[in-house]
């Protein structure tokens, strides 16, 4: 029976934790979803996003980069036509409920 070899442990093994800091996908409880029939492509959500997580499609519609989106809901508050809605990803704990 062959034992699996452990990966070599070095001082650098701590560093991969910092690499994960670039992703925000486990922070959010909700994520924004665009309704393309209502969207006017004004770009207000793109301007307002504090993380720069919203980008433009090939079709010209806007979309969230789910690697960086924190689900703060700023784009929903500032949307002109109200085409953005929240989709729940995780259920909040009762003491965190709005």
């Amino acid at each position, binding site marked *: 029976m062959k034992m699996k070899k452990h990966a070599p442990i070095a001082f650098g093994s701590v560093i991969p934790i910092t690499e994960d*800091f*670039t992703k925000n996908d486990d922070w959010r409880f909700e994520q924004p979803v665009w309704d393309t029939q209502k969207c006017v492509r004004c*770009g207000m959500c793109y301007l*307002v996003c504090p993380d720069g997580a919203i980008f433009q499609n090939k079709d010209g519609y806007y979309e969230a980069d789910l690697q960086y989106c924190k689900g703060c809901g*700023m784009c929903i508050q500032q949307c002109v036509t109200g085409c953005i809605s929240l989709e729940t990803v995780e259920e909040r704990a009762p003491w965190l409920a709005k």
Partner: protein
Amino acid sequence: MDKLSVFVPKILPKQERFLSGRRSCKGCGKSLAARLIAKVSDSADPALGGVEGQNNGLSANTFAHDRVNTADTLEKFIAILDSFNARSREQSRTNHVAIKKPVIAVDRKILDTDYVALQRALKKQNVLIVCLDNEPAMDTLINKAIPRPFVQNERVHPVTEKDVRDAVRRKNLPEVMVKEDFSYSATACPSYPFDLIEKVKTAVACSGNAFILVMTPCPTGWIFNSGKTLDMGRRAVLSGYFPLFEVANNKTRLTVDLKKRKPVQEYLAMQRRFFTFPSNLVAVFQPAVDEFYEDIKKIGTLHEIATKK
């Protein structure tokens, strides 16, 4: 054409110089302001920072980017300035494209603590300083105002009406900066994004040092819903608590001139951090804000009269 481009976000440059990550909280006002400034400033290497000021224990160097520098303390600020000057000297020698004007964002605490040292560092320089202010001074005032047990209550200094008035008066930093030979100084807020962008453009274009004070609402510190940061900043401007004005060529001009201001108490009630604040002191904010707002108007007219004659 300038008036037409006010609400057309599509026209803005699409380059993203801001690194998104876990440095900022949900719905951070600071990171939004830093992102908009980095997007607009056309200088070759805009150094932006101060976003790390709210970070807990994580060093800024782990997230360092080529174009993003941090000025959390005064030592870092001077180091960034020196690196810029050295680089511009090299570039002028080798006939490369010279750096126009470095943009450095600092936290409010540098100005509060090390103001004299900063004043000396800025002699014979050509910099735009963006001060990001999320009102850390107000938190100390709130902590002070919590009623103590009856034995301690006599020893601790109580919060008076003068303290509240001084806290409101601190928003008048640009007026101070003009006396220090700053060629352009202004206040801005990310809830009026195109106003902020135009002010940054004029500040970069002018010769000499420039200064912009940016109010950045903080949802974790002020305790409100993270989606409402822009509404919070807008309410602060509409109530006259944070008036938007600019000082150029000894003229003050209110960029958002209000005839009817909204009550300040509604703005304070939106923030959960004021729920321990005594109710008799909350009433002091309204006359203090009224005085402050009308003083800025008076100064503007005085400057105009002096220049006309």
